[in-house]
């Protein structure tokens, strides 16, 4: 096992932590943070796995896709935050309605 696998496993850990937080937290800002952490985990797995063979030069294709992914993530985050503010302005709560309580 080399360092690439170490970072790939950290990526899996980040994805799982983000998924857990996405499920248990009701506040939408926390959910948006959780999705961002999940995304970072996915990016880390993608690049780390391409770096498994240390002798070859780094593969530029996954790196380019992750750079694209980071920009897409920030635009999605901005849209999600605006939607959250709209929802909070309409309902007074930055949370989605809970089926069990209604």
């Amino acid at each position: 096992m080399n360092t690439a696998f170490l970072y790939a496993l950290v990526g899996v850990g980040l994805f799982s932590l983000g998924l857990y937080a996405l499920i248990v937290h009701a506040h939408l800002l926390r959910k948006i943070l959780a999705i961002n952490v999940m995304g970072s985990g996915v990016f880390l797995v993608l690049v780390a796995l391409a770096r498994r063979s240390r002798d070859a030069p780094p593969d530029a294709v996954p790196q380019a896709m992750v750079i694209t992914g980071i920009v897409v993530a920030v635009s999605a985050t901005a849209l999600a935050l605006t939607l959250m503010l709209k929802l909070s302005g309409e309902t007074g709560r930055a949370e989605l309605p809970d089926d069990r309580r209604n």
Partner: protein
Amino acid sequence: MEAVNLMLWTFDTLLGLGLLWVAWRTLACADLFKGIVLFVAFGLLMALAWVRLDAPDIALAEAAIGAGVTGALLMAALARLRASETDEGSAGQLGSEGSDAEPSQWLPVVILLVVAAGLGHALLSLPPEAVGLGAEIAAHLDISGVSNPVTAVLLNFRGYDTLLEMVVLFVALLGVWSLGREIEQGASAPGPVLDTLARILAPVLILVAAYLLWVGAHAPGGAFQAGSVLGAAGLLLLLAGWRPRADLTARPLRLALVAGPGTFVAVAVVTLLTGAWLLEFPPKHAGTLILILEATATLSIGVTLAALFLGGRPRHDQELR
């Protein structure tokens, strides 16, 4: 050699554990403001991890966007959320920001463990050697027009990815604009420190963006990194209370927003009509075409990121006739 290897191993292990710990604190800590500050720290640790994985281009993008712009967007959203909550006098709801995980919920923990174990097992059962396109890229780098492989992939070999990515950024801004106008900030004048800092840093950031754009042809850098640094300059000016004049937010702003995707589509159509494939550049002109595409993309990415920060259409936006 052994000692260096051991040190690097220790560093990697500590960095990995640090990433997981900061991510956990980001998501679990009771105060949302603290969570966002920790998220910015998380982004900077991620940038270190990218450097360790021989990906300096991603490290630059992560530091500028993941840590910088996303952090600023989250902070602004939290400030607006708290302002609207205090306006309605619903002080009790501030409590709902707290960590609301119910400890009795064991099902998510089981899901967490099953997902982590399954993905970890899948990773470790992969063959030790990666099959990639690294050799393929190295063999064709001399016809790409640039000598940085990541820029070659982004702008030449897989140019359509970048074209579609520019469109995603543009559509996200359309979504934000269609949800309403810019949210009025409280009339708080910036302190002297922020005001002075913004005046000094904004020109420096614009210069850094131009440098990153130029250097991207042969070293880590490029349109995305330059665009996000440009966007950061815009954010800083907006934070210091600057707002674009009304005559700038009508046509000039819209032109800057569509310059990147528009130029990309125009080049794609021209390459298609001149007999080549979509976005296949003739090797002789590839370098020039890439520089033009990157320059307009940088402008559009920077302006879009700054416009996203406003959280809606600019206030003095006049309807176009």
